[in-house]
Every structure is written in C-alpha cells, then in structure tokens.
C-alpha cells in the first residue's frame, strides 16, 4: 500500500485516494491526421514498461482530482519523486546509471 505525496495537496495520502493512469509524458500528436496508422498505434498502445524507474501518471481521484506524475521504481516500489503535470522529472533512469 503506497503512501503518495500529492504535489497539489502538498502532503502524503493513502493509495486508496489515487488511481494509476499509466506511463507519463505521452503527448497527443499535434496533428493526428498526419500520423500513419503505425505512429497512431504507437501513441495509443506501445509503452516503455520498464523494470526499474518509471515515470507515470496518477490522479488524486478521491482528493483534489488533479493529475500529476510520479517517478517510481517498479521493482521495489520506491517513489523517488512526485511532480506537477507540467513539470519534468528530476530523477531519470539515465542518471541512475
């Protein structure tokens, strides 16, 4: 059971208040029409799904209803940082190596 820091409520909350929404930083193509089926498919379905550091989107569903990002280790479940939706992660896998 995770204890998650909500960057908008500015405190830790219980996992029950949140929903995980998958990989973060997947921007909708600016011009979908110009995407090939392949490109659109990659956008829709293909994911990094790393074993290790993962930047993921969560929503504080039972709290402030804000979406935000978490950098989490998918192996030991340690949360390295949480940051607002417009922000970039400070901790990345490349740094970790």
């Amino acid at each position, binding site marked *: 059971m995770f204890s998650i820091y909500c960057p*908008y*409520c*500015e405190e830790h909350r219980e996992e029950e208040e949140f929903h995980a929404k998958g990989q973060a930083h997947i921007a909708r193509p600016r011009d979908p029409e110009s995407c090939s089926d392949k490109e659109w498919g990659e956008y829709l379905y293909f994911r990094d799904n790393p074993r290790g550091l993962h930047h993921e989107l969560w929503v504080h569903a*039972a709290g*402030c*209803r804000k979406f935000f990002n978490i950098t989490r280790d998918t192996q030991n479940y340690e949360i390295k940082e949480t940051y607002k939706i417009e922000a970039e992660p400070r901790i990345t896998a490349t740094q970790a190596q």
Partner: protein
Amino acid sequence: MSEQMLAEQQTLIPVYALMDQLPETEGPRPESPLCHADLASLAEQGSREGGVRLQEQALLGHLVLRGSLQNESFVQGFAQVMGMALPGALESAAAGDASVRWISPDEWLLIVPGKQAFSLEKQLREVMAGHFSIANVSGGQTVLVLAGQDAVNVLKKSTGYDLRDRNFPVGKVVTTTFAKTQAVIRRTGQQEWELVVRRSFADYVWLWLQDASAEYGLTVTA
C-alpha cells in the same frame, strides 16, 4: 452587422446561466438527503448520552467556486463579498454563518444558509471577472456533524487519513475516502468534525456511521 448591433447582441446573450433554485413561497416542501432517516424524531428519543453525536445540517447553500489565485477579481471579489479571504491548501475559513473550504488549487466549497446561495452567487458573479465558475450544488450534498469523545474512533474506522492533532488541527479540511465513498472532512473542534457527503451516498454514510458508532453509543442531535 454594425459593431454597435453586434455589441447589443452580445449583451443580449447571457454568458453564464444564473438560476435561483429555491421556490418563492414556503409551499413546496424541501427534503434533505437524509430526510427519510427522520433524524428529528431519533433526536427526541436519543436522550442517552453516547460517545458519538451526529447531526445533519440540512438544506444549507452549497456553492462550488472554481478559479485561479492569479485571477485578482476572483480572489478580491470573494473577499469583498464574503468578508473573508479564500483559504490556502487544506485550510478553511469562516465569517458569520458562511464558511469556505479549500478543495483543490482552483476549487473551493462555500457553505452558507440555504436562502443566501442564490444572492451570493449573484453578487460574486457581479464582482468577479475573467475565468472562473460557480456551481450551486445545494441539492447535491449535505453536511453531517460528528462529535464526541469517540468521534475520532468512528473516523479511524472510516478513513485512512492521518487524524492526529499534529496533522489534523482544528480548521483543516481534507477531501478523502470515507468507507467506500468520499467526504470533505473538516475539523471544527477538538472533538468535532464536519463531513460533507454527496446526496446519493448519504444513506450509505448514515448506515455506516450507525454501525461504526454502535460500540460507543450514538446520539442523534437535532
């Protein structure tokens, strides 16, 4: 179309739909979300002093305010009309019989006497400009007050939120899970909490509270 006509037309087209949802006469009988539980008569029977006291503050005016703290007219306008400032994260404020709760960085819940909801929304809309919204949800939720020495134990059974004094001082407000629904919980006293719950879940919350209070004794107050 001349600019003047255009301007006229725009003034004709309302930007927001403002509606007084209360009848003019006393005729129509309102029913609070817990009306069917008939707390009033329970209150009369419930003379026994229990470790937990419960009261529904029915039929109040609930307004959801959305806006940015960067929007001065929104911030100022609220202060001007309500005589208090919009509270910061997880804080609440009160002025007279009006109280306001932080819900999210761009959302506040204002609770006022039922009859004031419309006029206040009107006034607020008049002084506020730019990007903001106000939604009257007076019929969509209700306020329950939970008090007594064991109130905190009932809450501990109902939510995983950290209720310790150092984390949850009087005046703090959080939106969190409550049993299998949600509530806006505000600490209003050392042994007193206010729950705002949605109408359609009110009966479930009522059942839950009766059950969770059973071992301490529940007293319903009018």
